[in-house]
C-alpha cells in the first residue's frame, strides 16, 4: 500500500494554517499564561521555598509546566481539529477521499503535535529568561517532548471523534488533564506526600511523564526513567489501538 502523501500534506498544511490564522489565541496566550507561573512561583514566591534535590523551586517546576502545556494544548488542538469538520459537516470530504485512517491521523495528529512542540520550545525559551535552567540530557528531553506531544495529540483526536458536543470537548482537558497534571508532581516531588498518597499517585499517568521529563533536565526523578518511557509508550499504543478501532468500525464517523 502506498500512502497518499499529498493528502497528508494537504491536511497538515490546512491545520497549520488554522494555527497561524489566530496567533494570539494559538501561540501568544498559552505562552503568556504559562510564563506567569515562572514569574509568580519562580521569582516571587520561589525564593522563599527551599530547593528540591538541589534544584531551585523555580527551575524545578519548569519541566512540569511544559508538560502541563503540552498535554492541554495537544488534547485541545487535536480534538478541535477533527471535531470541527464533524460539526460543520465537512467531514464528508475526508470520508469520500481516497485516503485511509493512517493519512487522516498523520495529517491531523502531526499538525497538532507540531504546534504543541513549537509551544513547548517557546515556553522553554521563555523560562530561560526567568529561572536558572540546565538540561542534562537534551536528546532525551526532545524525545520526551515529541513523544508526549504525539501521544496526547492522538488522545485529543480520539476525544474529538468521541465528543458530540462542545461541552464534552472542553470537559476532558479541564476536568481530567489539568487536575491530573497538578496532582502529578508538577509543583512538588511526590516524595513529600504521605505514603498512602504516594502509592495512589502512581496510578496517575502524568506522574510518569513529568518525572521522566524532569529527569532529562536535572537527572532527578520520582520514578525510574525507564518506567516513565514504558508508560508513555504504553499510552501511545493504547491510543493507536483506539484510533484503529474507530476507523475500522466507523464509530461516530460513518452511519
Amino acid at each position, binding site marked *: 500500500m502506498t500512502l497518499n502523501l*499529498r493528502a497528508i500534506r494537504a*491536511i497538515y498544511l*490546512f491545520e497549520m*494554517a488554522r494555527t497561524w490564522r489566530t496567533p494570539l489565541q494559538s501561540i501568544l496566550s498559552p505562552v503568556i499564561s504559562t510564563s506567569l507561573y515562572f514569574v509568580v512561583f519562580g521569582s516571587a514566591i520561589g525564593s522563599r521555598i527551599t530547593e528540591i534535590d538541589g534544584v531551585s523551586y523555580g527551575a524545578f517546576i519548569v519541566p512540569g509546566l511544559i508538560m502541563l502545556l503540552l498535554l492541554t494544548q495537544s488534547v485541545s488542538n487535536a480534538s478541535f481539529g477533527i471535531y470541527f469538520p464533524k460539526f460543520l459537516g465537512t467531514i464528508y*470530504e475526508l470520508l469520500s*477521499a481516497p*485516503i485511509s485512517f493512517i493519512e487522516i491521523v498523520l495529517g491531523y495528529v502531526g499538525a497538532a503535535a507540531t504546534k504543541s512542540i513549537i509551544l513547548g520550545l517557546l515556553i522553554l525559551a521563555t523560562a530561560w529568561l526567568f529561572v536558572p535552567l540546565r538540561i542534562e540530557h537534551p536528546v532525551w528531553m526532545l524525545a520526551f517532548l515529541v513523544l508526549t506531544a504525539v501521544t496526547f495529540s492522538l488522545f485529543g483526536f480520539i476525544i474529538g471523534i468521541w465528543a458530540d458536543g462542545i461541552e464534552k470537548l472542553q470537559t476532558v482537558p479541564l476536568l481530567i488533564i489539568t487536575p491530573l497534571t497538578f496532582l502529578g508532581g508538577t509543583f512538588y516531588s511526590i516524595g513529600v506526600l504521605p505514603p498512602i498518597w504516594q502509592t495512589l499517585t502512581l496510578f496517575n499517568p502524568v506522574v510518569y511523564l513529568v518525572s521522566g521529563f524532569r529527569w532529562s533536565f536535572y537527572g532527578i526523578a520520582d520514578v525510574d526513567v525507564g518506567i516513565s518511557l514504558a508508560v508513555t509508550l504504553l499510552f501511545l499504543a493504547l491510543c493507536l489501538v483506539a484510533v484503529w478501532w474507530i476507523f475500522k468500525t*466507523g464509530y461516530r464517523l460513518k*452511519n
Partner: protein
Amino acid sequence: MQSIISVANLSKTYASGFQALKRIDLEIRRGEIFALLGPNGAGKTTLIGIICGIVTPSEGRVLVDGHDIVTDYRAARSMIGLVPQELTTDAFETVWATVTFSRGLFGKPADPTHITKILKELSLWDKKDSKIMTLSGGMKRRVLIAKALSHQPQILFLDEPTAGVDVELRKDMWQVVRSLRDSGVTIILTTHYIAEAEDMADRIGVINNGDIILVEDKVELMRKLGTKQLTIELQKQLDAVPDALAAHRLTLSADGGNLVYTYDTQSERTGITALLAELNHAGIRFRDLHTTQSSLEDIFVDLVRQDR
C-alpha cells in the same frame, strides 16, 4: 456499453432499524447524465453516500469502473467528485485554500491553472481570496462544486445541486455540467426540479421507499408513459358527452366548454381523424384545438403514487 458504476444487491439498514435501501441493482453508463428522482427519504442520498464512502453498506457490492468501493476504495474514490446536498463548507478559509485543499486530499499534484479555470467557470474568481463564511448560499454552493471538480473526477455526483439556488447560478451550473459531459465525465444528479431532469438527463431512475422502481432512457420513458391529450374548445357549451361520441374516451370539462380526448401516442391509430369526422357529423362545432403531452413530473407523480 460497459457500466462505469455497477450496484448489485445493495441494502442499507440504519442502526435505528430504518431500511433506507432494499437490495438495489443499478448500472450507470459511462459518459451519461443520470437523474435519480424520488421523494424525500426515498434513499437517494444514502445510495450516493454508499458509493462515495460516507455510508457503510449493510449488504451488496458496488464497483466503480471495476474497482470495489470497499476493497479497492482508493482507486474507486479517486474517480469520484461529490457535491453534497447540505451547504457544508469551512468558515474561515478562503475559497482558493479550500479548493486547493480538496485537490491535495485526492492525491493530485498542485495545479493552480486548473483551479483558476474552475473558479472562473463557476464565476468564483473574484471571490477567490474571500473567506467562505462571507459568501452567500449560492456562492457556497459554487464552492462545493469547485471542490468536487478540483481533482478532475471521471464521475460527478450532484446531490440536489439546485435546491435554493437562483436562476442565474442554475444556468451557470448546467452550462458547466454540459461541458463536463462533453468532456466525457459521467454525471449522476438528484433533483427536486423534475423539469431539470427532463431537460438534462439521458436516463432517469426513480427511487421510492428504498427501491429502484424504474430506470429508463428519458426519451423512451416520455414516449412510453407519456399520454397525450387533445382539447377541443367548443363553440357552444354541452351538458354531457353526446351519445353519438360515447365510443371515444372523451371527458367534458366542468364548464361544459371543452371536450378532452386522451390517446396513446404509441398506438397505430390515434383515432383523431375518426373523432373529428364524428364531431362534424354530430354537428358539434368547435373553435380551437390543442394537444398537451404529460411531463416527466406527471409521470413521476403517477409512478410514486402507484408504488404506495
